[in-house]
């Protein structure tokens, strides 16, 4: 089974938790400081395509969970790499040097929406939002409804008063 071979290879080199989710799906959990090294290693194993990078906000646990998905054209396997960082001081090493531009644009988006600093990414300028001065909008503690009330609606307006009523 090729999935098991891959996990064994990774486990031999790194101290990670790894398991097979199902056929052709492999998941690896690592510490953030070993991330770039691990990504370089799995790229050499054939995972050339970084298909997605996402961040999940867990405010109660105080962490941002990064999820990287990489696809291997050679073995037709999708690998998931998960790592957790502190959400109050979100900093992580960029994988720009591993996967290049495809990582760059994902990291730029996550920087905008979650405020994560990717050390080593050459361009983290705003991608979708213009003239944004609030906290990053995808953080769970960003109250978008309050923001909308403040910026778009008028409580004195009879037609818009309904937006200020609590349900």
């Amino acid at each position, binding site marked *: 089974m090729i999935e098991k071979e891959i996990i064994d290879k990774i486990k031999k080199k790194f101290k990670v938790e790894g398991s097979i989710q199902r056929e052709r799906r492999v998941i690896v959990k690592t510490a953030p400081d070993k991330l770039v090294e691990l990504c370089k290693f799995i790229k050499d194993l054939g995972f050339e395509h970084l298909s997605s990078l996402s961040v999940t906000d867990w405010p109660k646990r105080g962490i941002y969970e990064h999820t990287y998905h990489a696809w291997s054209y050679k073995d037709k396997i999708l690998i998931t790499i998960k790592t957790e960082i502190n959400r109050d001081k979100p900093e992580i090493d960029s994988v720009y040097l591993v996967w290049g531009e495809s990582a760059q644009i994902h990291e730029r988006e996550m920087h905008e929406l979650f405020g994560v600093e990717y050390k080593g990414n050459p361009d983290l300028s705003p991608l979708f*939002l*213009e*003239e944004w001065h609030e906290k990053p909008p995808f953080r769970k503690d960003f109250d*978008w409804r309050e923001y909308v009330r403040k910026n778009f*609606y008028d409580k004195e307006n009879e037609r818009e008063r309904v937006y200020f009523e609590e349900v």
Partner: protein
Amino acid sequence: MTKESPQKKTMKKLIKAIWVLNWFNSCGFAELIPVVASRWDMERFGMIVVGNPRHADVLFIAGYQTLKSIKRAQRIYEQMPEPRVVIALGSCTMTGGMYWDSYNTIKRLEDYLPVTMYIPGCPPRPEAVFEACAKIFKHVEEME
């Protein structure tokens, strides 16, 4: 026959062939394709879709506009020659629709552009679009 005002003369020329520029930001475009296609066929009223705002008489705006795209819509509007008409389609342009509490979409189009007519509906039916056009024709015919 009473003498026509210069404004009416211009408008009569305009409604013979309405050239439309579509500025669609969301599902509005997919819902308006039937208007162009053969079943409802807007060309029988002389309406054509053009690709350049400098040729257009009517600007169709459908769906929500984000804070970023409304600036581009304003620039498109500024490029259109007079007389120009803005028709807003769908409930998103009126109140924000289902995006009423979204942080990055505008809520009322008339705060940003002079809207001539709203067509309600989510999405508006092709018949509603043609009724709006008929109202423009009627308005021109009743002009002094």
